[in-house]
């Protein structure tokens, strides 16, 4: 009976646990048949407890009268829960957390003791822009639909409706009739959303307001919700065919890093030495590195690009910093309502990158906030060689190690991006010319590189296998 007494408080205790996490994302649908090129969509999610603030970037490029947005939301939103924010918050978070290059300059090898030489460090920023194509489909429209408008607001340059629908056909027809195009692949998810009691947040541009405001670009919409669900309904935004779409998710939480619970969250490779020539081509470099990583994991994963504790009391907000870290007013604009600038607040920033398509992503993205506060960044290292005199013996040694290092850099490049290192022969041969007596042989016959311990270990292992085989034979 004593055991039963122990059980009861534990059961009671556990009933009070709060479910972890939740939120939303939108997708852009084209109105009419305009073909639109959208850059990678970006979303900021600030979440604590069940409250979620989600900001959807708007880099719609096309005629603003063709813009239309549909987002499934878990409840009817009030007007105070919808606002427009300045577009630059996305630029700021993007620049802060983008994959980065760090450069080091080798010291002069002659007349300087290498151990005391300080390495100069400088930072080169850069980010990869990925272009995503969204297509619209042709649909016929009809009347009488079972769609009710639950709320109607005008926020900034947007006309916003909150719809409740009872059946998917009606909703589909209503949307078509009113100029919202849903990609054909996405129609199959209307029913599940309706049955899950989701409402539909739809936005169009009010052209008069837009002219009055004088904004040339559409500003991001920010909505606040209360729901235990921490997810992004990507299914509705899936374009037709095999097209891949890129989505970058920035999250701000009190607790720690955000990860996906229904797909793998994989860290991007980081910290490798890369050839110096990628500096001017960093956008393509990262784009190919991402693509390669994506292919290796067969598309089915979410990638972690950045994770950092940006609480006001944490002084090291990045290492190296590509651009200023978000300050507390940026965090507030990004939706982190709990931040007021005092020293004891907690904010953890996570940047996730996902490239999705209908075939690989059958479920919406579901997330959880973990207490993991480890910092992570996608960072690639460039080491610039010393350009002065290398004729001394130390200098000649330096050239040899430099050539080895550059070979490794090219191997890295080929492995991580798929770029053919054969095209960059002069990256090494330029330095081979600097060897005074051409003793240097390219490549090493030793498969274990320079590590003699690996050879010894290998031989010992082999010997032990041979000995044990012989012994076993004798036993028989």
């Amino acid at each position, binding site marked *: 009976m004593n055991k*039963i007494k122990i059980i009861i408080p*534990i059961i009671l205790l*556990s009933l009070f646990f709060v479910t972890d*996490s939740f939120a939303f994302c939108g997708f852009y649908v084209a109105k009419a048949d305009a073909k639109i090129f959208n850059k990678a969509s970006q979303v900021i999610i600030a979440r604590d407890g069940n409250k979620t603030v989600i900001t959807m970037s708007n880099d719609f490029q096309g005629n603003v009268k063709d813009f239309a947005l549909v987002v499934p939301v878990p409840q009817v939103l009030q007007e105070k829960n919808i606002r427009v924010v300045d577009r630059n918050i996305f630029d700021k978070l993007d620049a802060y957390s983008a994959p980065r290059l760090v450069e080091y300059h080798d010291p002069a090898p002659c007349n300087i003791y290498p151990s005391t030489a300080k390495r100069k460090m400088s930072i080169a920023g850069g980010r990869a822009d990925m272009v995503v194509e969204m297509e619209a489909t042709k649909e016929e429209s009809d009347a009488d639909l079972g769609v009710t408008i639950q709320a109607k607001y005008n926020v900034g340059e947007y006309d916003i409706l909150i719809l409740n629908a009872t059946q998917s056909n009606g909703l589909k027809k209503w949307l078509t009739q009113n100029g919202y195009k849903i990609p054909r692949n996405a129609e199959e*998810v209307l029913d599940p959303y309706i049955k899950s009691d989701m409402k539909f947040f739809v936005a169009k541009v009010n052209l008069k307001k837009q002219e009055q405001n004088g904004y040339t670009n559409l500003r991001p919409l920010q909505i606040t919700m209360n729901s235990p669900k921490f997810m992004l309904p990507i299914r509705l935004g899936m374009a037709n065919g095999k097209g891949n779409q890129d989505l970058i998710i920035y999250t701000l939480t009190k607790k720690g890093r955000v*990860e996906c619970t229904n*797909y*793998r969250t994989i860290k991007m490779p980081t910290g490798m030495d890369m050839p110096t020539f990628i500096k001017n081509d960093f956008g393509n470099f990262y784009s190919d590195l991402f693509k390669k990583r994506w292919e290796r994991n067969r598309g089915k994963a979410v990638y972690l690009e950045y994770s950092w504790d940006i609480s006001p009391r944490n002084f090291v907000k990045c290492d190296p910093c590509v651009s200023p870290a978000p300050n507390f007013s940026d965090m507030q604009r990004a939706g982190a309502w709990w931040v007021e600038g005092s020293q004891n607040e907690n904010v953890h920033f996570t940047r996730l990158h996902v490239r999705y398509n209908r075939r690989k992503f059958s*479920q919406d993205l579901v997330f959880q906030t973990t207490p993991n506060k480890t910092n992570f960044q996608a960072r690639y290292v460039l080491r610039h060689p010393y350009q002065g005199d290398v004729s001394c013996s130390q200098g000649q040694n330096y050239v040899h190690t430099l050539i080895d290092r550059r070979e490794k850099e090219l191997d890295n490049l080929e492995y991580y991006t798929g770029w053919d290192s054969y095209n960059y022969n002069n990256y090494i041969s330029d330095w081979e010319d600097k060897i005074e007596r051409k003793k240097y042989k390219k490549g090493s016959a030793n498969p274990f590189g320079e590590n003699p311990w690996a050879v010894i270990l290998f031989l010992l292992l082999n010997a032990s296998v041979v000995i044990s085989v012989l012994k076993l034979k004798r036993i028989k």
Partner: protein
Amino acid sequence: MSRYVLHQNSTINIDARDYQILFLSSFLFLGIFTLGWDTDLLKYSLLIGSCLSLQYAARIIFDLKLSSLKSAMITSLGLCILVQASHWYWYLLIAFIAIGGKFILRYEGKHYINPANFGIIATILLTDQVWISPGQWGNLAILFFIIGCLGFIVTYKVNRLDLSIVFLMSFLILEFSYQVLYLQWPLDHLIQGFTNGGFLLFTFFMITDPVSTPAHKTMRKFWALGIAILAFIIKEFYYVPSAPFWALFYLAFTTPLLTYLFPAKIFLWKNTTQNITLKTNN
């Protein structure tokens, strides 16, 4: 030169736990080498080391057999595969709760909680510094196949195949009815959830722990059904990731009641033992 000699007609006892240790460690290696998990040696050594040493201490106190260390090894490997913590010391707490719970929460001479499951969920409730990453397994078809086959072998050996099958089928039926028939998600939406490695591991390696499950044959089928229903409710209406783990945590506390109401022969590991006799002529 010293020579390693096998005793004449020496006997090696292999019970189902040895298979579990083998399979679970293979999943750990699979995770590290193919799924790109963190190679956090400190974590693995802390979990395995503390579980084994706690069990060893308990062995001295309660005068248990040396082979009881195998159970602790299984618990620690399960923890290595499933749990993550924000600091290294939480791993010690998890191991302490897992092994400690095993000796405190007992009924009629056997523990009724699954040590790994209890260790993880109780630590989440107590500290909120520990978490399970259900997404870390991905949805590889080959993984699905491997875990399924190996799990089948182990559950068959410990005579708990009925439990796995009842749980799997009833959870599948519930999810199918709700997601596909009611919400009308396409079928691949459902399949995605069922090919998750973590879910399969739970089905074949966690709920089938023969000691902590009800011994009565019919009752344990209802018990598995109960876990499936509770997991379904927690997953679909409370939106908790890794819902089955929570369901097992709660329902483990019904095992003493079921054992009291429906007594049955207690499970003994030695009944799964195979004696392999090596004949040597050395």
